[in-house]
């Protein structure tokens, strides 16, 4: 059973101002008496998340809203298991993929085909899986013979197409996204949206952070509003969205 549970989760970031970040300075400050150094050596801690308790069950499509710095990215990273919280418990059941930077793993000097492989490996696909999906990805990207030439020769739109086509070929149980993936010209955009819909349909849990009301209303069945690292509101999309967007 796919699920995510957070129990009283807090995330605190230590801010190492340069004096405390370097061991050399720490040693030097001892050698020089260290009064002035010590004053700035205080460890500053910034709270990313504060006491968040949350259960996400199979079938839920979570939308995440909040102003910049409200903890959305931090929460996404906790949900994908990248940040282990400073306090509290996390339990993630299910194979999780986060599509945040869809170009991660791509080597500009490698060809399109090689990059499909590299991107696939980065997302944890097996060689067999990649081989099976290769033709489909190549066809979807619509890049044809360009797939045999180095990635860096592509226009930025073509580069995004390849990254998008490969990244959306995965079928994880938990899908985590920071903003919706949409790219390309009008023709491609239509196909891309359909492909995104297929991907979302195939996943058991979706967590999507976005600033677009329309997008969240269309794709989510539960919306969480974060403010100052806490959950301010958690409920049905229309309810939370109208409170957040203020109408």
């Amino acid at each position: 059973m796919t699920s995510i549970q957070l129990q009283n989760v807090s995330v605190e970031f230590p801010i190492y101002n340069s004096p405390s970040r370097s061991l050399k300075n720490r040693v030097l400050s001892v050698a020089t008496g260290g009064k002035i150094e010590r004053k700035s050596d205080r460890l500053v801690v910034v709270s990313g998340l504060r006491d968040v308790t949350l259960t996400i069950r199979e079938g839920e499509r979570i939308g995440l809203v909040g102003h910049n710095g409200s903890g959305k990215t931090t929460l996404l990273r906790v949900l994908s298991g990248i940040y282990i919280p400073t306090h509290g418990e996390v339990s993630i059941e299910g194979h999780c993929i986060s599509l945040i930077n869809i170009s991660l793993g791509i080597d500009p000097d490698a060809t399109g085909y090689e990059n499909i492989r590299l991107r696939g490996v980065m997302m944890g696909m097996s060689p067999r899986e990649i081989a099976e999906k290769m033709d489909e990805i190549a066809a979807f990207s619509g890049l044809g013979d360009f797939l045999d030439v180095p990635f860096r020769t592509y226009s930025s739109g073509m580069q995004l197409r390849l990254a998008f086509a490969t990244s959306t070929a995965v079928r994880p149980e938990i899908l985590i996204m920071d903003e919706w993936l949409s790219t390309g010209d009008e023709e491609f955009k239509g196909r891309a949206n359909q492909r995104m819909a297929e991907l979302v349909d195939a996943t058991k849990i979706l967590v999507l952070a976005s600033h677009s009301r329309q997008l969240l209303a269309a794709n989510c069945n539960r919306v969480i509003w974060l403010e100052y690292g806490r959950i301010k509101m958690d409920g049905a999309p229309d309810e939370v969205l109208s409170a957040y967007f203020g109408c």
Partner: protein
Amino acid sequence: MHHSVGSSGMRKTGARVALADMVESLRSIRVALVFGWQDVAQRYRRSRIGAFWLTLNTAIFIAAIGLIFGTLFRAPAGEFLLYLGVSIIVWNFLSTTIAEGCTTFIASEGIILQVRMPLFIHIIRTLWRNVIILGHNIVIFPVVLFLVGDFLDWKALLAVPGLLLLILNLAWLTLVCALICTRFRDMTQVFTNFLQVMFYLTPVMWMTRTLPERVPSLVYEVNPFYHLLQLVRMPLLGEYPDGISWIVALGVAVVGWTWAIIFFGKYRWRVAYWL
């Protein structure tokens, strides 16, 4: 790599966390191998001889030093050149791996903050990349062997377990250096300087028997790098490494790994915050 399945009640610290990370890394070792290979392949993209540039640099260095020091130490030219060639190749492998190890997590920041992956994968990637480059540099050896007019005998095979033991030690060293340097960024400079000093302190360019008599042999015998180097170097020069070198290398591996696992277990969860 179907990781992160069933991680309920995730533990944060402890040796078990470290071991679980390593087991998971080995299970998805393909990621490390593909990207380590990719690192080397990148050097070939727009250059015909690619990573062999490094080999060429090494070869020129060996030739120059061989000429200068061979004259200076009045060592028999052929014998010294062979000794120097093997020493430099192995030492370069050792020191580059540790130096790159320091920046392993920092260099993989993009991946670590976006994809949940065991962290030891990045260490394996660094090791593998350097093993491939060692594979390039090792071609210098038969060339020197030919120039000197020497031959290999069966003892050379002992270099294989020696190399494995060296890599085993480099793995824990790299892991520990990566953790320390991610937290304290300027430690990378400290380690680089340390390696530079060790290069002169370890019998790499000089032979133990050219040491003046008033200098005690302890200066190199207490140096674990010397023993690690000996294990690969001696077989290739047609001699058996001393028993003590095997013992030291094994001992350092056991102690080092134990420490590294405890250390890694304690700080693994902090790495993402340090980036």
